[in-house]
């Protein structure tokens, strides 16, 4: 489980996806890129959806993005999250792969009125264990709000 959302599972390290989570554990945001045609893609898969090449690499990203859509969870599904109060879930579109890669993530340290579509957010990392972290996002001007 991550530090900020107790009681939830962490991501399992699988052959196709482990690189994403382990890079985050080192404080880097990476995205899959096709070795043949250069297309970025996410979430990770084994084949390029443009040219169908099976060869790919991880590419470091600057880690800035904007909020594409969001929701606030007022009624958590699991009891372990109830004490946190409402928490944010956002879809973040990365600046470096505009229109191509969006991540499901969270905007932390932000008030309810602050999180709007188009809000600029740099990446941060929420540790799961000593190897793995979840990429999360934090406004340039943090405000007291959703806990991180």
């Amino acid at each position, binding site marked *: 489980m991550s530090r900020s959302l107790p009681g939830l599972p962490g*991501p399992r390290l699988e052959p196709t996806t482990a690189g994403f989570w382990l890079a985050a554990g080192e404080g880097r945001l990476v995205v899959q890129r096709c070795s043949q045609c250069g297309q970025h893609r996410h979430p990770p898969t084994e084949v390029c959806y443009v040219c169908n090449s099976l060869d790919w690499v991880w590419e470091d990203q600057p880690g800035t993005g904007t909020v594409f859509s969001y929701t*606030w969870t007022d009624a958590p599904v699991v009891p372990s999250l109830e004490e946190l109060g409402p928490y944010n879930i956002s879809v973040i579109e990365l600046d470096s792969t505009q229109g191509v890669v969006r991540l499901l993530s*969270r905007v932390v340290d932000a008030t309810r009125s602050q999180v709007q579509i188009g809000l600029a957010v740099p990446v941060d990392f929420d540790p799961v264990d000593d190897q793995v972290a979840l990429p999360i996002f934090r406004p340039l001007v943090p405000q007291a709000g959703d806990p991180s």
Partner: protein
Amino acid sequence: MSDPIVSDEWLRDRAAIVGIGHTPWGTRGEYADKGHLRLVIEAIVAACDDAGISPQDVDGYSSYYTSVEPPDLYTAFGAKRLSYSSQTWGGGGSSMGGAFANAAMAVATGQAEYVVVHKVMTMEGSSRYGQAFGQMGQQAPTLPGPMAFSVPYGLQSPGQMFALAARRHMHRFGTTTEHFAEVTINARNMAHGNPEARFRDLITVDDHHRSRMIADPLRLFDFCMETDYGCALVITSAERARDLRQPPAYIRSAAAMAPYRYGGALMSFYNHPDDDFASSGQRDVAQALFRLAGVGPADLDAAMVYDHFTPMVLMSLEDFGICPKGEGGPYAADGNLGLKGPLPINTHGGNLAEAYAHGMNHVYEAVRQVRGTARLQVPGAENVLVVGGAGPAPSSGMILGATP
């Protein structure tokens, strides 16, 4: 017709729904002690009785996202043989129309004589959809597969995923929560005198807005209520249908499809084109259903639109061309959903007010409309659309007709 096998119209009206049956709609967990097999069997007995056939005549089964399997059913009833069995992918009620497409193809091509489409749910414990994804986290320290990119972030339920689509739609088109309320208001209006409906009280926009926020911008009254049920329908060829007890509800078209890179919808995939992100993901299947049926939106007399979450109804109306893209909200607010509107929507009350039977009660109501036996009958209903749930690919639908 140079090649009748691949022509658009080949399957049109060659199969019909001839029997419908279901258990009473139960509250969540009410029928857990009965078990799924018993609930399905009760529904099949009722559907066969409605059709005027014996369950032993049923030699095919077709379903979607269902646990009770055809080998157990045909053996239980003592049918002479199992001639056809299939199940579609998708989640919840998204691929509902695919089960009817498979059934129609099976009876029209002579693979089976009578195919039952069945669906069952007792929503207790881990079966409860609203808790299913969350409970993944309670059982294991890590999660595999696509859900590893969503559940660890606290995205654990269908309400949250559709909230993301709703918020994007609000941003792009000015849709409001008042518009969402209109969908629930219509459902309650339709269910008001329906003795089978679970929620019959009329509500206002204020009532809707006073209900508690669950997955902002979605409130309690934007959600349907989990229901226990067993459902079955009998499909046979048009020729056989004409000799049975009920007026046939001809299957003009049925299909399950998904757009480019739609994946598991917003539960685990967020990189589809923006127009599909703020949609029900049903533009492709809508076009196919109209083309295969040989009718257009203007030819419809009523529509039963899957309404697990209110904003998805607005987006389905857009994807099916019943209103222009982005105008689902104003279309609903202008009173177009009601009996006096151009296309009455969910005359039974839908998932929101009658029961959440994953699209099956929408099909029942469409059948009643073309039979002419609906409680809120649209006079002379000839073409009735059923829309499957927005959700994991593929989504689906069906157009039923009164006369071939």
